[in-house]
């Protein structure tokens, strides 16, 4: 069928990314904008922009009716949800299907199934994928204590409907497991409207490793290698890299096979990422969840594979098969990405919206910047504060770090504070250079030391 006119239901840098990918395929583009994004880069580059609602996301980007109505009325036959917003809410692809618009993403039933963490674990188990030692749903405080005793402390109580690290409680013993049950249930109900909990072993020295997948919806799945996203603050990723240099080759191959097996078992369609916890001490990996969408950090996988994942998404949604077989995916070198936010790292990462008065981005061999900003851009206070993703690729990790460091040095931004300086300090830190980091490193080692020196 091939999509002829694509509707982009997102904003900021990813909206621009999708417009560019579609234009590369000769596809017309229509982008949804809120009242605050009328002059955005995506709006200016697309063939048409439609103001769907006021600045508040709840009345614009998060309203599927406005999105689908605008897509249909502007003659679009495809819709890309980007990441965040409605990208993993099954109502969007369902509405698209009802109104004859091809959704660039998985089937809505698959989105629902994978969004339920307990069901996703069951699916992983059936596909033979190792899980974090854990429990089924926990119905009571006594259950919590029993499960904790059986798994072995420390443990983590998690919301089945949750994500992004919210609604998670650590328990170091039986008493804390019982008390934690009540707290975690309340938080889960408040945050997700669903108090169902389950429990997992808590791994103190863990790395976050994920595999980029692409499926044709008919059982064929290809992977584009793994990413290491262990530099995190409050469960939000700051730096991502590809491949995971800390994982030995044999284990990485097993990781890829597990991820592909899981996706193939559900006839996964379009782009997705299987996330795993890598227990460094035990040299074991465990399945955490699948993100049924394109992710913020997809550029690092594109840099090491030379492949355009977003274009492949659009092609698949138009009915095409996968463009490559696994043995045609060649991964080379190392890539590192910094998510740059308009935040004041010295003031506890206070979001600092405002106007960019100077914007001089870096360039050079192996440098890529995914950003919607330019001089005079205004960062509105209504959405996240990400201003861009700076990526460097090199023949190995050391060269990638060197190129990224030089790129940050050459990057001038004035008018708003950014986390560029923080990123530079992180990638020059001996722990990062020697790759001794884990998911708690930034908050427990780096930030306290940085504060002490401030």
């Amino acid at each position, binding site marked *: 069928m091939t999509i002829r006119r694509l509707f982009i239901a997102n904003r900021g840098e990813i909206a621009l990314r999708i417009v560019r990918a579609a234009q590369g395929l000769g596809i017309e583009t229509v982008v949804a904008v809120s009242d605050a994004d009328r002059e955005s880069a995506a709006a200016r580059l697309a063939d048409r922009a439609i*103001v769907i609602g006021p600045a508040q996301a709840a*009345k614009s980007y998060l309203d599927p009716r406005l999105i689908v109505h605008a897509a*249909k009325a502007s003659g679009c036959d495809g819709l890309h949800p980007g990441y965040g917003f409605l990208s993993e809410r099954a109502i969007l692809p369902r509405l698209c299907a009802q109104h004859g618009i091809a959704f660039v993403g998985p089937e809505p039933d698959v989105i629902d199934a994978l969004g339920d963490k307990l069901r996703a674990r069951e699916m992983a188990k059936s596909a033979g994928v190792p899980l974090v030692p854990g429990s089924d749903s926990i119905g009571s405080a006594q259950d919590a204590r029993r499960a904790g005793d059986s798994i072995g402390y420390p443990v983590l109580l998690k919301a089945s409907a949750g994500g992004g690290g919210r609604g998670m409680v650590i328990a170091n013993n039986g008493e804390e497991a019982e008390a934690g049950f009540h707290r975690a249930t309340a938080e889960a109900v408040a945050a997700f409207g669903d108090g169902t909990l389950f429990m997992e072993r808590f791994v103190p020295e863990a790395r976050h490793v994920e595999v980029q997948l692409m499926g044709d919806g008919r059982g064929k799945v290809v992977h584009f290698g793994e990413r290491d996203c262990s530099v995190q603050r409050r469960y939000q990723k700051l730096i991502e890299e590809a491949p995971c240099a800390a994982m030995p080759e044999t284990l990485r191959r097993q990781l890829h096979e597990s991820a592909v097996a899981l996706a193939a078992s559900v006839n996964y369609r379009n782009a997705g990422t299987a996330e795993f916890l890598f227990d460094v001490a035990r040299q074991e990996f465990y399945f955490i969840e699948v993100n049924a969408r394109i992710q913020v950090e997809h550029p690092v996988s594109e840099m090491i594979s030379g492949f355009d994942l977003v274009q492949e998404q659009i092609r698949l949604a138009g009915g095409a098969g996968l463009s490559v077989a696994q043995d045609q995916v060649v991964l080379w070198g190392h890539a590192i990405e910094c998510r740059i936010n308009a935040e004041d790292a010295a003031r506890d990462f206070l979001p600092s919206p405002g106007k960019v008065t100077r914007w001089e981005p870096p360039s050079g061999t192996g440098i890529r910047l995914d950003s919607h900003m330019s001089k005079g851009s205004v960062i509105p206070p209504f959405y996240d504060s990400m201003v861009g993703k700076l990526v460097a690729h090199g023949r190995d990790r050391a060269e990638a770090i060197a190129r990224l460091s030089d790129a940050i040095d050459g990057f001038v931004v004035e008018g708003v504070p950014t986390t560029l300086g923080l990123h530079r300090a992180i990638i020059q830190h001996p722990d990062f250079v020697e790759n001794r980091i884990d998911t708690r490193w930034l908050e427990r080692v780096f930030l306290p030391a940085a504060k002490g020196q401030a």
Partner: protein
Amino acid sequence: MTMAAGSDEATINDARALLREFARSQWQELYLVNDGLEIFIARQGGGANPMTTAAAPAPAPRPEAVNKVQLSTPHVATLLTCAAEGAALKAGDVAATLELLDETVDVLAPVAGRVSLVSAASGSLLEFGAPILVILKYPQ
């Protein structure tokens, strides 16, 4: 400083901390919207306060003159029907109907008056904020 927030202690402490930081900084004004907290702080001679101007919900009738009221599109939708120029409307009358997917949305006249200008064509896709019609209020 203008603030709209919950009155729980955590939010009040956040606001105090923010005000302290602002006082110590070089900033002229700050406008922050976050979970449960909306706050605007400005030094004397600072900019317009977005909270007092943004308080009206869409569609906010924008008076062009004291005796006229503009009806604007509350969210993207297709215009189905619209009162004709010259039509007389009472406050609360349906001035226009919009289509959003399979639903119909009524846009009501906020005041009584005569339709003086219709800016939108039936069947067209209207963006958020697009003008629909102008009502000339009856003299008091």
